[in-house]
C-alpha cells in the first residue's frame, strides 16, 4: 500500500513560528499544492523532510546541506529566538504523520536550544541539545498511538515513507531533476535500469561463466597434453590462440580506454550543453552590452555638454534668454528715463539758477542788441548802440566780443544731484539694445532647447533601460559553476564545447576501428578453436570437452542475455517516457515529436527529442529539457511497478517550466504518484486579489487537486518579526 503523508507540523522551525498546532499542513491522497513567494517557507518545508531523512537542512545562502546540529541556531525561528531570555530554552521541531495501508505513523524530530548570551544570531550564544527522535505507531482500526522504541524499527518507518533508493526520483528540488538523469553518464541510465531490473544477476552470472570457461579450457588443455603424443600442429594452434587472446585483451583494453575518453568528452559536452547555449547567448548579449555602453557614454557626454553649454551661455552676456520676461520693461524704462531726465534737467536748472542766476541768464539793459546784431556790429567794427567805431583790437571791439560770448564762457558748472546716474542708465539702455528684437524668438528658442534636452534625456533613459534589460538577461543566463564575468568566460565555454565534440568524434572513430579489429580477432579465435577441436585427441574424457564447450557457449549467451534485458528495459522506459511526455506537453505547441533513447558508441544512452520528420530537435529551453528528464523519471517509476507506493515531494520543480508545462505537469503527476506535495512559487501573484495566477485559480477548481495552501509573510515586518502564515484555500 502506498505511503500517504497526512500532515506535517512545525515548531519554531525557520519562519514557521509557534507550536506544532499553529503551523500544520494537512494533506490528502492526490495532488497537494503549497503556493508561496520567495521567503515564504517552501524550502523550509522541504528542509523538514531533509531533516527527517538525513538529519540535514539546506543552507539557502550557499546551497549546501548542513547537519541539523551544526546549523541549529539558524533553524530556530528568529522570533522565537528573540523571545527567549538568557538562561531560557526554546524547542524547534518537525512532526510528520503518514499512513500506509494498515498503520499510521507519527515521527517527531526536535532539538532544544538554551540561550546563554546576548547576540541571538551567534552560534556561541546557544547551547544545543538534540532531542530523542519520537516515533509513534497506531493502526487505523483502533487509533491510539504507541511509541516505537527500537532504533532499527524507527529507521525502517522513516525509510518506508520513501525508500532510500527511490528518493532521488521522488524527493527533489527543482534543479535536481537535471542531475537525476544524466544521459551522458553510462551509469545514469544503468542505475535506473539496475533499480528496475535484475540485471546485476546477469552480470554476476556472466563473471562466473567467464571464470568457468577459462578454467574449463585450462583443464581441457591439460588433458590434451597428458593424453596425446606431441602434436606440432595442435601446439601451434594453441599458441596462436593464446597470442590472439592476448591481442584481444590488448584491443579490449584500448577499447575501454577510448570508451572512457568518449564518455569523458560526452560528459563534458553535456555539462557544457546548457552553458554552451547560454555562453553563446551571453556572448551575443555581451557584444550588445558593450555596444550599448559605448553609445550610452557618447549620449551621456552629449547630454552633459549640452547642459553645460546652456549654463555657460547664461553668463556670456549675449544670451537672449536672460531678457525673457522683461518685455514690458522697455516702455517702462522709456517712460521712467524720460521722467528721470526731465526731473534731472529741472533740478539742474533750478539749482544753478537759484545759486548763480547771472551764469544762466544774460540780463541786458533795454535796447541791448541781440546776438545777430552783435555779430553784425563785430563784423562791421562799429557799435550801433552808441554809434561809435569799434575797430578790431580796440577795447570797444573786445567788449562786443565779450558781450556776444558771455554765456559760453562759464564752464565751471556745479553738481546738482548727489549721484549722477545718467551714465548708468545710458549704459543700461545701450546694453539692452541688442536684446530688443529678440523677445519674440525666446519662447521658440527655449522650446527647441527643451525639446533637444528631452530628446537626449529620452535617448539616455532608453539606452539605460536597454542596457539594464540586457544586463538582467545576461544575469539570468547562468553559466553553472562559473561566477566570472565577461566575454572571455563565454568564449572559453564555446571553445571547450567545440573541443569536446571534436574529442568525441575522434574517440568515436577509434572505437569503430577497434570494434572492427576485435571482431576480426574473435573470428580468428573461433577458427583457431575449430582447428584445435579437430586436432584434439579423441581419447580425452568427454566431460572435459563438454565442460569446455558448454561454458564457452554460455559466456556469449549470458552477455547477450544481459544486453537483451537492458535493451528491453530501455525500450520499456522509452515507451513509458513517451506516454508521460505526451501528458506533460499536452498544453504546449510542440506536439508530434517523440523521445528516443539512443545508444552512444560507448554504450551510454542519450535522450533525444525527434520531431515528426525524424529530425533531432536540440537547443530547446531549460524548461523543456527538464520536462524531458521528468518524463524519464516518471517512466522509471511507472516501468518499475504497476503502482508506485511513495509520495512525490518536490520543491519548485516548475521554476524553469513555462505556463503550459506547469499545467501539463499537475495533470500528469497523478498518473504516477499516488500522492504529491508540490511547493511552488509560479502560481503566486502578489498583485492579484486572491494572490494566485490564472493557472493557480484554475488548478484550485480541479478535482484532482486535493489541498491547496497559500503561504505568506509580512514583508513589512523586520526579519526578527517575520513568520509564515498558512492559509488553506482548499
Amino acid at each position, binding site marked *: 500500500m502506498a505511503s500517504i503523508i497526512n500532515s506535517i507540523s512545525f515548531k519554531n522551525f525557520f519562519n514557521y513560528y509557534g507550536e506544532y498546532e499553529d503551523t500544520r499542513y494537512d494533506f490528502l491522497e492526490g495532488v497537494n499544492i503549497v503556493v508561496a513567494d520567495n521567503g515564504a517557507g517552501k524550502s523550509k518545508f522541504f528542509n523538514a523532510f531533509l531533516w527527517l531523512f538525513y538529519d540535514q537542512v539546506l543552507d539557502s545562502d550557499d546551497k549546501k546541506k548542513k547537519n541539523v546540529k551544526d546549523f541549529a541556531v539558524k533553524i530556530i525561528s528568529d522570533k522565537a529566538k528573540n523571545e527567549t531570555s538568557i538562561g531560557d530554552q526554546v524547542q524547534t521541531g518537525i512532526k510528520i504523520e503518514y499512513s500506509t495501508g494498515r498503520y499510521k505513523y507519527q515521527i517527531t524530530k526536535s532539538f532544544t536550544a538554551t540561550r546563554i548570551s546576548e547576540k541571538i544570531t551567534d552560534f556561541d550564544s546557544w547551547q544545543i541539545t538534540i532531542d530523542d527522535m519520537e516515533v509513534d505507531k497506531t493502526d487505523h482500526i483502533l487509533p491510539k498511538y504507541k511509541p516505537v522504541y527500537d532504533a532499527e524499527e524507527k529507521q525502517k518507518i522513516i525509510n518506508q515513507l520513501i525508500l532510500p533508493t527511490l528518493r532521488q526520483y521522488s524527493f527533489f528540488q527543482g534543479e535536481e531533476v537535471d542531475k537525476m538523469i544524466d544521459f551522458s553518464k553510462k551509469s545514469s541510465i544503468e542505475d535506473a535500469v539496475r533499480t528496475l531490473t535484475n540485471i546485476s*544477476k546477469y552480470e554476476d*552470472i556472466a563473471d562466473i561463466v567467464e571464470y568457468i570457461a577459462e578454467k574449463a579450457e585450462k583443464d581441457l588443455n591439460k588433458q590434451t597434453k597428458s593424453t596425446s603424443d606431441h602434436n606440432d600442429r595442435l601446439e601451434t594452434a594453441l599458441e596462436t590462440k593464446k597470442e590472439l587472446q592476448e591481442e584481444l585483451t590488448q584491443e579490449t583494453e584500448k577499447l575501454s580506454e577510448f570508451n572512457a575518453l568518449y564518455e569523458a568528452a560526452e560528459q563534458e559536452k553535456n555539462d557544457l550543453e546548457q552553458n554552451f547555449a547560454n555562453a553563446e547567448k551571453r556572448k551575443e548579449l555581451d557584444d550588445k552590452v558593450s555596444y550599448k555602453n559605448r553609445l550610452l557614454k557618447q549620449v551621456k557626454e552629449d547630454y552633459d555638454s549640452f547642459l553645460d553649454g546652456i549654463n555657460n551661455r547664461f553668463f556670456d552676456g549675449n544670451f537672449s534668454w536672460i531678457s525673457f520676461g522683461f518685455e514690458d520693461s522697455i516702455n517702462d524704462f522709456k517712460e521712467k528715463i524720460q521722467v528721470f531726465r526731465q526731473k534731472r534737467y529741472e533740478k539742474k536748472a533750478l539749482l544753478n539758477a537759484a545759486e548763480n542766476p547771472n551764469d544762466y541768464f544774460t540780463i541786458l539793459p533795454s535796447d541791448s542788441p541781440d546776438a545777430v546784431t552783435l555779430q553784425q556790429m563785430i563784423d562791421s567794427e562799429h557799435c550801433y548802440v552808441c554809434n561809435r567805431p569799434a575797430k578790431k583790437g580796440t577795447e570797444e571791439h573786445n567788449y562786443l566780443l565779450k558781450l556776444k560770448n558771455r554765456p559760453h564762457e562759464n564752464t565751471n558748472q556745479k553738481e546738482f544731484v548727489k549721484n549722477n546716474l545718467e551714465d548708468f542708465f545710458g549704459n543700461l539702455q545701450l546694453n539692452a539694445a541688442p536684446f530688443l528684437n529678440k523677445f519674440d524668438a525666446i519662447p521658440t528658442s527655449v522650446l527647441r532647447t527643451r525639446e533637444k534636452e528631452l530628446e537626449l534625456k529620452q535617448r539616455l533613459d532608453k539606452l539605460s533601460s536597454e542596457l539594464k534589460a540586457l544586463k538582467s538577461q545576461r544575469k539570468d543566463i547562468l553559466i553553472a559553476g562559473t561566477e566570472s564575468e565577461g566575454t572571455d568566460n563565454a568564449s572559453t565555454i564555446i571553445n571547450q564545447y567545440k573541443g569536446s565534440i571534436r574529442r568525441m568524434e575522434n574517440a568515436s572513430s577509434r572505437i569503430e576501428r577497434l570494434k572492427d579489429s576485435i571482431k576480426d580477432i574473435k573470428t580468428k579465435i573461433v577458427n583457431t578453436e575449430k582447428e584445435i577441436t579437430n586436432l584434439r585427441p579423441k581419447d580425452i574424457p568427454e566431460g572435459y570437452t563438454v565442460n569446455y564447450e558448454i561454458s564457452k557457449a554460455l559466456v556469449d549467451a549470458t552477455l547477450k*542475455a544481459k544486453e537483451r534485458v537492458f535493451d528491453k528495459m530501455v525500450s520499456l522506459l522509452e515507451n513509458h517516457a513517451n506516454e508521460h511526455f505526451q501528458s506533460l506537453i499536452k498544453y504546449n505547441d510542440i506536439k508530434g515529436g517523440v523521445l528516443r533513447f539512443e545508444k552512444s558508441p560507448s554504450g551510454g544512452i542519450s535522450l533525444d527529442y525527434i520531431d515528426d520528420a525524424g529530425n533531432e530537435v536540440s537547443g530547446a529551453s531549460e524548461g523543456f529539457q527538464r520536462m524531458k528528464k521528468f518524463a524519464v523519471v516518471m517512466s522509471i517509476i511507472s516501468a518499475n511497478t504497476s503502482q508506485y507506493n511513495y509520495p512525490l515531494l518536490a520543491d519548485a520543480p516548475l521554476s524553469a517550466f513555462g505556463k503550459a508545462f506547469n499545467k501539463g505537469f499537475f495533470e500528469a503527476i497523478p498518473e504516477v504518484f499516488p500522492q504529491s506535495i508540490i511547493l511552488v512559487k509560479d502560481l503566486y501573484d502578489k498583485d492579484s486579489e486572491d494572490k494566485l495566477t490564472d493557472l493557480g485559480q484554475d488548478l484550485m477548481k480541479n478535482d484532482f487537486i486535493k489541498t491547496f495552501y497559500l503561504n505568506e509573510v509580512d514583508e513589512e515586518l523586520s526579519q526578527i518579526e517575520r513568520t509564515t502564515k498558512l492559509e488553506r484555500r482548499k
Partner: protein
Amino acid sequence: MERNQILREILSDPELTEKYSIKKNELDSLTTSPPYHKKIVEVLSVIINENDNHLNSSMIYKKLKKIHNI
C-alpha cells in the same frame, strides 16, 4: 521464479537453442530445479542457484566438475 526467468532468457539465445536443440515449448517450461534433461540446463541452473547461495566462482566450478564427472 526470477531464477527460471534468467535461465530461460540466457538459453533463449538462437545459437544455443540450435546447438543444444532446445525447442520453444521446452524453453518456456524450463526451471532451475532438477530433474534436468540437458547438460547445459543443468550447468546453468547450478550456476544461477549457487550464485544466489553466495557460492564463489571457484566453488561453483568444483560443483560443475562433479556434474561432468571430471
